[in-house]
């Protein structure tokens, strides 16, 4: 858990801060919005309760058939 | 500029832990190279005993002579456990190096284990990513341990000795065939066919624990083992035996093209003829609910090893060819009768019908009801160095 935060938080925050400082606001937003789902999924993986994508898709498909 | 330098340095540093061989690397001298595996079981205790014969890297001719005399070419480790999977963890109680079975050459199974079942072992080998199934499997008559702890003369590593013998037998006789590998066993058992694996028997009970003694003993038979006969397997279980004579005809009917020299009787006289199969054709059809199997074999004869009698005229050649053809047909029929009686299906009748007439309903009982006709066409094609054997009478032709 600690390792996860140790690695991912600087990897997400530092480039985002860099982008903001350079004035690329849109880029910073995109960067964070693509990284955040990744961070969320990693959080679940590190907690040993991963969010299983195929099972989720199965539920979605079953709703429609 | 410095940012670029920093970035490139970071990437270089990052590349180091990403070298995935860090996790899966093994040094050569940490490996135990297995050359032969033996499988035995103890039904009373419900355990399996596996013997690993490991090659001793110090025993090569190029290495410096170790203090204390000659090095054994192989070391045998044995391990007993409740399942094959368990042995993989427990073997390191005795074995100081990492088991590397990718190069093993022979698998030996005790007759006791063979008669119970070898399915577990087949599953185990196939499941491992490093296990090779393309190696021959032999059945050992009697206890397995003495065979696993026997040194062989001439070929120092016993698995090399067995493999070399099998190769020679395949080429120079009909006593062994190529399809005795674990892959063949699995394929045939899954298709509900039978397979015959060679049997290893000890010649005598004397056993030497020192390879030097065996290497310097003129009697090559002492303590050694011989490949003779065959074990019939059905459904991963050994159900019977064939002797050497029956093995010849079994392999002939299976389409083996090895050369074999055998003593035939031609016009009441013994003649040693070399024969080999040129072509075999099998035809399957159904007549009033009974399968009709017709086997046609073209066999080439040679008098290269004949010292008793060599035909002199075309008539005599024709007679000899005819008698030999009939003799072979008789022997093949005898094997078929034996196979039918014991329900071994050694001719592969069910397999043939499944391939040629898959939709017919009664394939399972095919062997019992089948009408089998075997036709052999033997022709003398090659001769040896003698045109006419020397006879007893003194002078004159």
């Amino acid at each position: 858990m600690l390792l996860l935060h140790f690695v991912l938080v600087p990897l997400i925050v530092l480039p985002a801060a860099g982008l903001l400082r350079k004035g690329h606001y849109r880029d910073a937003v995109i960067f964070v919005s693509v990284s955040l789902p990744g961070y969320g999924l990693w959080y679940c993986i590190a907690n040993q309760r991963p969010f299983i994508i195929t099972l989720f898709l199965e539920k979605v498909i079953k709703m429609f058939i | 500029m410095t940012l670029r330098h920093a970035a490139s340095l970071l990437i270089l540093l990052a590349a180091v832990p990403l070298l995935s061989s860090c996790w899966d690397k093994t040094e050569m001298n940490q490996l135990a190279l297995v050359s032969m595996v033996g499988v035995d079981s103890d039904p009373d205790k419900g355990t399996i005993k596996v013997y690993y014969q490991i090659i001793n890297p110090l025993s090569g001719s190029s290495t410096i002579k170790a203090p204390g005399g000659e090095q054994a070419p192989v070391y045998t480790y044995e391990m007993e456990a409740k399942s094959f999977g368990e042995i993989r963890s427990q073997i390191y109680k005795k074995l100081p190096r990492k088991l590397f079975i990718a190069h093993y050459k022979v698998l030996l199974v005790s007759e006791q284990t063979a008669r119970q079942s070898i399915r577990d072992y087949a599953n185990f080998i196939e499941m491992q990513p490093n296990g090779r199934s393309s190696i021959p499997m032999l059945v050992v008559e009697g206890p397995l341990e003495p065979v696993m702890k026997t040194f062989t003369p001439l070929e120092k590593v016993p698995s090399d000795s067995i493999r070399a013998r099998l190769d020679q037998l395949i080429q120079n006789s009909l006593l062994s065939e190529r399809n005795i590998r674990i892959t063949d066993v699995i394929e045939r058992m899954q298709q509900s066919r039978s397979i015959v694996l060679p049997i290893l028997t000890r010649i005598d009970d004397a056993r030497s624990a020192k390879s030097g003694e065996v290497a310097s003993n003129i009697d090559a038979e002492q303590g050694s083992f011989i490949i003779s006969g065959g074990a019939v397997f059905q459904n991963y279980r050994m159900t019977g035996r064939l002797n050497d004579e029956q093995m010849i005809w079994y392999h002939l009917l299976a389409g083996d093209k090895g050369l074999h020299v055998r003593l035939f009787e031609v016009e009441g006289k013994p003649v040693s003829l070399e024969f080999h199969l040129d072509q075999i054709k099998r035809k399957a059809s159904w007549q009033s609910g009974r399968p009709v199997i017709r086997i046609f074999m073209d066999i080439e004869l040679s008098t290269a090893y004949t010292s008793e009698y060599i035909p002199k005229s075309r008539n005599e050649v024709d007679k000899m060819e005819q008698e030999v053809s009939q003799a072979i047909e008789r022997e093949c029929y005898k094997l078929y009768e034996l196979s039918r009686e014991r329900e071994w299906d050694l001719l592969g009748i069910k397999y043939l019908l499944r391939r040629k007439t898959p939709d017919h309903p009664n394939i399972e009982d095919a062997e019992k009801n089948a009408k089998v006709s075997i036709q052999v066409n033997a022709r003398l094609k090659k001769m040896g160095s003698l045109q006419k054997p020397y006879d007893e009478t003194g002078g004159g032709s």
Partner: protein
Amino acid sequence: MISRFQFYLLTINFIIGTTPFVMLQGLIAIGKQDAWIWPLLTGGAGVLAGMFWLLLFRHYPGKNLAQIPLEAMGRFPGAIVSFLFFVYFCNLSGWILRNLSDFLNGTIMPATPAIVFHIMFLLVACYTVAQGAECVVRLNQIVTPLLFFPFWIVFLLATVNWNWERFEPVLHLNPVVLFQHPAFFGFPFLETISLTMLFPFVQQGPGRPFLLGILTAAVSLSILVFVIIGLLGADRASQLTYPVYTAIQEVAIGEALVNIHSVISVILLVLIFIKFLVLVYGISETLQQVVRPRTRWPHFLSLMILLTAIAHSMYENPIQNAQWSEEYSIYYNTFFTIVIPALLLVATWIKRAYQKRQN
């Protein structure tokens, strides 16, 4: 710009991609000794799907899949559709990474953590894609002979174990059985919509190399299944997880070289990498078209974080994946590769009709 031949090669390698690892076992289990015919049939369906996509692309020459929804449906709804494609490509990439690490962990490198494989592939892929589409395609062209010859030479060496009897009874299976398992139509042919991201770069139009590539890939897969059946037999191959790997394991060059399967595995890995490259290009290009960012590398970093996470979260064990593939993957694939393009086509026709009426 890329030549038609380069695009043709890319199409073939993309389709073959992960197929030797993922589909073979299931295909042979159901098709048995006639399984080699099925890639030809599913490839035919793939060609039909390809023609359907080309129909859509004919209305938008010089545009790729991410730009079409923006033009056909307007800025906002188009962005949603493009976002759907973004999700589709991300999932596909995650699957590929997971298949890769499963294969390597299950065969030659069991102790290495999966993330190491993912990051390595991603680093090289992101770098390649950052150089542009031409880099991807040229890399593929250079690498193809290095893949093609060793792969088929090894199989030629393996033919000592060939047995024609393994194909009998020939053509015994009812072809209707194939239609009861529609999953085989979805993977791998419907995934080739990812290649449409590269359509604008192909000189003289992408249609012919695309369709020919699909056909050639179908024939190649058919030959591969044919060889596997001949070497291992349908019964055995259907029970092995990686039949290609096992077939190669039994190849021996003389008595000395008996362990060449690890070398051949690397060749198969490069095929996976090519497929992965195309997908990463698709993802980054979709992102570029929809949101038009001004910088490059931060987005690759965020993609790496996202894709490694997706790879780990794809499925818990291969049995789950197999069941999902068998039962639901066809709906998933059809939605993204047939339904949405059909929607776009309809939107295009409506827009054109409206414009014509206005004129």
